């Protein structure tokens, strides 16, 4: 049986375009070759995070003021 696509220019062109189109995997390889690997989180983010973490640890481990008063 003969496929209808064989006698339809639009369908043949669609098939040709599909075969010629850049595969997504190739496009992704090109994108990755252009965009340098960026760290998952920026240095600024880590700096702020460390600062907040240090503050939280300091607060958590320092003796509360009322407790200091009770000790005196």
């Amino acid at each position, binding site marked *: 049986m003969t496929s209808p696509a064989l006698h339809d*220019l639009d369908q*043949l062109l669609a098939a*040709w375009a599909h075969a010629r189109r*850049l595969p997504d995997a190739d496009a992704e390889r090109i994108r990755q070759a*252009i965009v340098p690997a960026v760290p998952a989180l*920026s240095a600024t983010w880590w700096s702020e995070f460390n600062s907040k973490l240090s503050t939280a640890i300091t607060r958590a481990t320092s003796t509360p003021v009322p407790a200091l008063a009770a000790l005196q």
Partner: protein
Amino acid sequence: MTQSQDDAAVFTRIFDQHRNAVHAYFLGRVADPELARDLLQETFLRVWRRLSEIAPLPGEQQRAWIFTVARNLAIDSYRVSAARKAAEAALRHHATTQETTVAGPHAHAELGERLAHLDAAIRRLPEEQRVILSMATAGGLTSRQIGEALGEPAGTVRYRLSQARKQLAAALDLEDEA
């Protein structure tokens, strides 16, 4: 300049939006798939380097900017590789001697043969018709969008597309119903 994750995300959006159209343009210009990929990569490398200028532009202006780069790269590739007439002659020779199938190995043999004939006929088209046909079919662009990208009136694009279709229909012994 330090380019952040935000830049990468912005670039990816632009890349995904325009890559098929630019690739189709290069396929029409150079016919060699490997060279088309190389030129595509070079085009978007320039987009990446100038991202801060391009990103704020509306989509149509982004397309115009990208295609200006693409056209210049295609011209440069002609200068480097060979004179344009030699390239055209090579394309025609390739079309007549290597009617390679564009369908995959699992495609129906008859359809594969038909597509190979179509591919050869497309390679024989005048370049201005081949580029427009490729951008319309593989790139999925409208005549207006192709015209904006190439700096041609949409009517000229439609006319060339129509001429290309007529030539292909004749080459494949088909009726062109468009």
